[in-house]
């Protein structure tokens, strides 16, 4: 049965490594250590499955749409990530076969999930072997330039999933509402890596935002990223104790954009890289409106019991510099 209210994108399994990192980067255990899921060599070669199709979208249209999404990530000037289309394949996505395959498939366990990204990791070397993206063919899809009523936009969803394929986890820069009768609807998102997609019929998710650009550039820095942008780092404490999993948002007053990160270690430390020089408002908030499993490994205890707080001063970011003196204090609900 098709569910109109199903708007979920794949969710991440992120184990933040030490020390504190900006953004959530996907990682996994390999050979007794945590390794970031990151491509050691680029371009990342991918193939498109011609096996299953979705009503209304041909293989050529699908390949072109995902190609545009790959191109957008590759065009980020401060990132070195690159991709290469390797042709069509009769293989299905989601098979552990050494190929990074994108395509449609109808899987029972993807009930109410639009698309999902998977990785195969060599646990001896820690290297990525492949990454597949399954688009759920039980939904209605479209590649129309302006979207199509009642159908989900392939390019928007591909943009999100390719962020995962590249190693990015979810970003929490989004807002939702509950609807009568069930389901959540996205009211707005300042990232394509928000775990819930916009509804059908829209192409609102086709454009990378400042948070996405900062994240991919932090993973694969290039083109003056370290000198043209700056960072904010510091700690978050409650009752004098550091807290884990606080969401910290840096709002760029000059551009009206947002980049966010989390406090990612036992010391409550955070670091947000890729910020435009200039004044920023810093907001600290709990991830209490989200399914925490979609951001963090379940073994980690994320503190959700605190009120939203703003830093009592503007933070002036300098290009190539780090404002490492941010000490944010929050209080219990």
């Amino acid at each position: 049965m098709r569910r109109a209210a199903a708007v979920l994108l794949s969710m991440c399994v992120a184990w933040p490594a030490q020390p504190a990192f900006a953004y959530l980067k996907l990682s996994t255990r390999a050979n007794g250590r945590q390794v970031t899921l990151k491509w050691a060599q680029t371009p990342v070669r991918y193939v498109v499955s011609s096996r299953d199709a979705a009503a209304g979208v041909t293989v050529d249209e699908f390949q072109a749409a995902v190609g545009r999404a790959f191109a957008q990530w590759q065009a980020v000037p401060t990132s070195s990530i690159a991709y290469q289309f390797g042709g069509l394949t009769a293989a299905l996505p989601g098979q552990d076969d050494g190929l990074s395959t994108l395509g449609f498939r109808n899987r029972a366990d993807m009930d109410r999930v639009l698309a999902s990204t998977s990785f195969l990791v060599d646990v001896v070397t820690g290297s990525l072997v492949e990454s597949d993206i399954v688009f759920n063919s039980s939904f209605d899809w479209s590649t129309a330039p302006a979207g199509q009523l009642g159908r989900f936009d392939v390019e928007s969803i591909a943009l999100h999933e390719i962020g995962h394929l590249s190693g990015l986890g979810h970003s929490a820069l989004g807002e939702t509402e509950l609807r009568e009768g069930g389901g959540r609807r996205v009211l707005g998102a300042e990232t394509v890596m928000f775990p819930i997609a916009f509804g059908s019929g829209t192409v609102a998710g086709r454009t990378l935002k400042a948070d996405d650009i900062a994240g991919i550039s932090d993973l694969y820095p290039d083109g003056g990223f370290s000198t043209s942008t700056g960072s904010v780092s510091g700690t978050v404490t409650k009752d004098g104790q550091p807290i884990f999993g606080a969401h910290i948002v840096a709002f760029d007053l000059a551009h009206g954009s947002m980049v966010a990160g989390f406090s990612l270690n036992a010391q409550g430390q955070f670091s947000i890289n890729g910020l435009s020089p200039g004044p920023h408002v810093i907001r600290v908030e709990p991830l209490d409106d989200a399914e925490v499993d979609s951001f963090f490994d379940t073994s980690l205890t994320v503190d959700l019991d605190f009120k939203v707080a703003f830093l009592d001063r503007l933070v002036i970011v300098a290009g190539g510099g780090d404002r490492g003196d941010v000490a944010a204090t929050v209080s219990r609900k």
Partner: protein
Amino acid sequence: MPADLTELSRDARAIARGRVVAIDPRWSDDRRSIETIVTLEVETYLKGTFGRTVQFRVSGGELGRFRSVTVGAPEFSIDEHVVVFLGADGPSVPHVLGLNQGVFRVVRAADGWVVSLPSAGSPISGSARIVRGDTSRRPVALADFEQRVRTLAGGPR
């Protein structure tokens, strides 16, 4: 993020609360991908039934030198207490609804077992904005959570 409890409760074939007692990675039936069979010792069903122990399938797992990670697939640990919303097609091994949307972790707090919910149930009419940091949002006592799920699922109260 989960759809919400209303959808999950309505659509699940069975809803079980229990303790994870086994986690077994294996090759899928078509031998083309790695999956994990999770065994749950059931303490109670909030909807339907699959027996005193239930096995369900999740994507990913580690076999030999390879680890398959499906982004969004739930992961479990032995002795963990969970409520799982299960779906099943015919006689196949059940699966968790919506990857990790269909898993709620039950944890012990100072005043008993609780479940953290990102939102309350759907509004009776219209829509309701979910506000991050809402000071009224707190973990729900397990008994209250179960009562809510039973009600949404149309089961016994």
